[in-house]
């Protein structure tokens, strides 16, 4: 191994990896540098340069502007994540351990809901929420996220529960346990990793969502993505504010990704429908 260290191959390998890593980090660097500059110091030709004076006030300004949206996003994300993972867990339990005639067809029909471009359901969703008096507020948005989260959460839990040996379920049934007691006493306690993976996945998806946020909520119930788009949307913006806002909107999901990356990746892989 020692002799291979400085071969042409390894120079190429590390060189390419470093270049690629720089390319991937470039936007993060740019966002941080711009957010930390004094607004007057921001100019296009010197965009890459490190700020001469570190200025944290952009962050406090961004927090002030985005705080209501941030709180909306937290409420929305937590409620919708809990709803869709609980239902998804029950569905996954049925799909993997209590298959009945036609359940595979139903499962496939569920999955289809995951792959449709959401534009196709947007107009009736808007109408239905209006008819239910849920348009404009958080409850309607939460409902939408729960329903359209069902395909992916059912899929992840189905694949997760497939790993629980059927013999375990069978023996519990022989001991007289029924549908719900098997779920509560055996399956649910074994589901903690499944819940972690699914809720992390749902959390990031719901936190990052924009289309429903902008179409289905009024100003007071806007999630953070909509708030950020409004902050950055104007023509005469000074860029320190949108950059600080971007960092703020990204922080919760970035924190999840950095600290719980293993589960995040597992959710990512589970979402690609392979078993």
């Amino acid at each position, binding site marked *: 191994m020692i002799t291979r260290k400085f071969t042409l191959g390894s120079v190429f390998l590390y060189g390419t990896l470093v270049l690629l890593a720089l390319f991937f980090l470039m936007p993060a660097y740019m966002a941080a540098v711009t957010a930390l500059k004094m607004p007057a110091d921001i100019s296009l030709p010197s*965009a890459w340069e490190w700020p001469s004076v570190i200025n944290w006030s952009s962050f406090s300004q961004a927090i002030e502007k985005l705080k209501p949206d941030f709180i909306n996003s937290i409420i929305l994300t937590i409620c919708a994540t809990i709803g869709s993972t609980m239902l998804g867990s029950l569905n996954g339990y*049925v799909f993997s351990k209590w298959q009945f005639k036609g359940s595979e067809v139903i499962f496939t029909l569920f999955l289809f809901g995951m792959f449709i471009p959401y*534009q196709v*359901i947007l*107009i009736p969703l808007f*109408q239905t929420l209006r008819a239910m008096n849920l348009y404009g507020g958080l409850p309607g948005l939460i409902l939408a996220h729960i329903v359209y989260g069902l395909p992916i959460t059912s899929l992840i839990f189905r694949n997760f529960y497939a790993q629980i040996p059927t013999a375990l379920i069978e023996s519990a049934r022989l001991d007289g346990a*029924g549908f719900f007691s098997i779920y509560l006493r055996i399956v649910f306690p074994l589901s903690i990793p499944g819940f972690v993976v699914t809720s992390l996945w749902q959390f990031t998806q719901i936190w990052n969502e*924009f289309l429903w946020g902008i179409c289905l909520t009024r100003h007071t119930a806007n999630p953070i993505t909509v708030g950020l788009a409004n902050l950055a949307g104007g023509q005469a913006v000074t860029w320190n504010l949108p950059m600080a806002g971007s960092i703020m909107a990204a922080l919760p999901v970035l924190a999840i990704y950095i600290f719980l990356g293993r589960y995040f990746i597992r959710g990512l892989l589970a979402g690609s429908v392979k078993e």
Partner: protein
Amino acid sequence: MREASRDKWKAFLTLLPSMILIGVFVYGFIGNTIWTSMTDWGGVGSLALDPQKNFVGLENYVDLFTGFLGGGFRQDLVNAVYYSVMLLAGAVGLGMFIAILLDQKPKGEDVLRTIFLYPMSLSFIVSGTIWRWLLAPQGGVNVLPKYFGFEPLTFKWLSSQSAVLVFNWQDILRILVSFVAFALILTGIYMLRKDQSKAIKRLLVPGIALGAFVWLFGDIIPDALFMEEEHGFNLATLGIIMATIWQYSGYTMALYLAGFNGISQDLRDAAMLDGASQAGYYRHVAIPMLKPITISAVIILSHISLKMFDLIFAMTGPDNAATGHPALTMYLTTFRANDFAKGAAIAIVLFLIAAMFIVPYLIGQYRQRGRH
């Protein structure tokens, strides 16, 4: 046994609420949008609780594809096709390349993997905002060469008006038929080694016949429009493609890396013993083995590129027609212009394109599950 059948009922009843929700919110809503797309819902009274809608058949679709005012939509559709193809090639290619590099187990692999994957966790609005700043003219990416002693670039990433690969929309039907012929011939040649007679009968002969037909009698195929209308790949879209590849190649990398790790070391050693080089191992052993992963990645990325809305919204805003996309136009038509019927028709076009590859994929998955 009565106990068991009662449990089966409980299982069914547990699933029932989700079935109803999905039934209404997915299938019912799709049906509703199809119906809406065949009405004239729009205009002044469109936001009333019980708006007036009249059935107009396929008029909205005819308008979109051949009408005078549909030109913008047709450009968006062309953009979307180029965008999808380039995103697929870029994200799958780069992701696979990084996965192969990381599969060599370099030092710091964990850190590198984290760096390559973090964009995936961000919202499109966040990445769109940052990339818009990075692609600003006279700044960002354009001034980078300055630091290496070169002249700065002057490319107008998000506002360029020049287009390449331009074609006349009048010829769209002829182009589509030639495309089908070309695809048939190509798959035929690919299949030739596996099943010769089937490849010739079902693919090569029809493909060549179709191709010859367009070439010789193409004039019979009607013009799609009565006037010339040129569409092409707008260069302003390049910036958006770059941002999307940046965000999603980490995802394909994670898929391939998981796949590579799943291949047993024995198989790799065996390939090496048989004299395979590193490149040969990936070319002939590893990548063909990961075909299901490639298919999943292609399906998911196509789905993402078809519904792409947030990133374009954040990068060029709703006003730049040059980087338009049907998903964005759908939003603007419906919720800004209040033309619900036209918006629904655009949504259905997107849906049909998506269904074209999702339905076969899901049926394939379903059959595969049945076999186990």
